[in-house]
């Protein structure tokens, strides 16, 4: 049975980033939650990579978030 592509394993680089970024942001990650946070961050990273793989054709402007600009 295939695994969903976002059922991510935790890369050592991900773990290192999570630890460093949490320290910089003054976030305490208890030992019991470290694996869970790492797993979730790995999933986000995997999906971010998928987004990053497409060069945006719309230039540098981010998406419109005001209703008027979606009209």
């Amino acid at each position: 049975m295939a695994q969903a592509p976002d059922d991510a394993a935790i890369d050592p680089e991900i773990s290192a980033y999570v630890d460093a970024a949490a320290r910089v942001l003054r976030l305490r990650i208890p030992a019991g939650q470290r694996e869970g946070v790492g797993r979730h961050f790995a999933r986000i990273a995997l999906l971010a990579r998928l987004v990053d793989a497409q060069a945006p054709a719309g230039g540098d402007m981010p998406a419109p978030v005001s209703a008027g600009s979606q009209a």
Partner: protein
Amino acid sequence: MKSAVEIARGVRAGTVRAAQVIADTLARIDAIDPGINAFTVRLDAQARRDADAIDASVAAGRDPGWLAGVPFAVKNLYDIAGVTTIAGARIHADRAPAARDATLVRRLKASGAILVGALNMDAYAYGFTTENTHYGATRNPHDPRLTAGGSSGGSAAAVAAGMVPLTLGSDTNGSIRVPASFCGVFGLRPTFGRLSRAGTLPFVHDLDVLGPFAASAKDLALAYDATCGADADDPVCSDRAWTPLEPALSQGIDGLRIAVCDGFFEHPLTAEAREAVQTAAKALAAERRVAIPEAERARAAAFVLTAGTAGSLYLSDLRARPDDFEPLSRDRLLAGALVPAAWIHRAQQFRRWYCAALEAVFDSVDALIAPSTPCPAFALGTETLSFDGMSMPARPNVGIFTQPISFAGVPVAAVPIAVGGPLPVGVQVIAAPWCEPVCLRVAAELERRGAAQAWVRS
């Protein structure tokens, strides 16, 4: 349970007293809700007073409003005057009570509807199952061992259990459409910016949309019509002209070009979810198949944007009082707080391209049909879903088919399909921005042709 239309008709005509409607409603909630856990706040005394006022208006010959006497309830991220807005989260429980009702609550009340309580949800609206450690899980009215879906699980379950005919919820990534599918009721996620969000606790500002649940397309339309309109208190709320939905319901689908989403939306699906799409397509004679470009990437971008925004929103509380957070979402929020700005910016860049690409699809199609959920409701506590040759974590993947749609901000009706199994499952009816009438015309036609039907406990 009588529909909102029937209740309002009777109260307005003076053949039914609003006080009796409310007494019956409260008695039904007393009897049923202990087994469902949809309500977190009851407003019995206020509801009785409001009902008496409606009856007095009718007796005096004044217009009591189009929704006169219709009981309704709202997800507990809506402000209710005098009640603390908690958004399902204990970290908000010590906030001051709201000074006034949210805009949509005020508008429903102004139409004569009567607020009876607030409804359970996933903490922070971050979840698809309404498994809430601090306030209890909301159980599926069709099988209490199963999830009601989320995050507006209380809103969908309250309608499906026949406790109230109308509720309000919110939908960031699927939080109206997922519980509507699992509970077998109608829901509407209007165009981003169509309904005011003033007086609600945000989750992901760039994606959050409010909308109604009901047991029929007609009740859904009445709730939308009563709540629509510009609002200076929500900077995103549009002042663009809007079309009432109720008159559109009788227009049928003549002239509408309807297609079924293929590609990303075809897998993974259980047999029941696949049957729901096929049933809807057959009833609408929708033979054309359309691929939404880059739907998988859109889902990924919605996931990244949600994680990063939610983590940032709660950063100070994550620092100061992490132990007060919902255990089921604390790790996700902590992970989201670590998301670099570049990923969020990239997701927004992609969103711009994707919105234009999806709008281009609507050059040749008026409505799209897609599954709401990959499966019917599953057992509370489920960690992994396995079907259609796939095994995946349950909670992040329930919204796999809703996220690419809401990411573009387009309107979607959630429609419960009459499938043969023991549990409901729904489809999404998707239209171009600002085309809510198209969604409701299709939903109403599915009802007329017997392909759609709410699953409401008698």
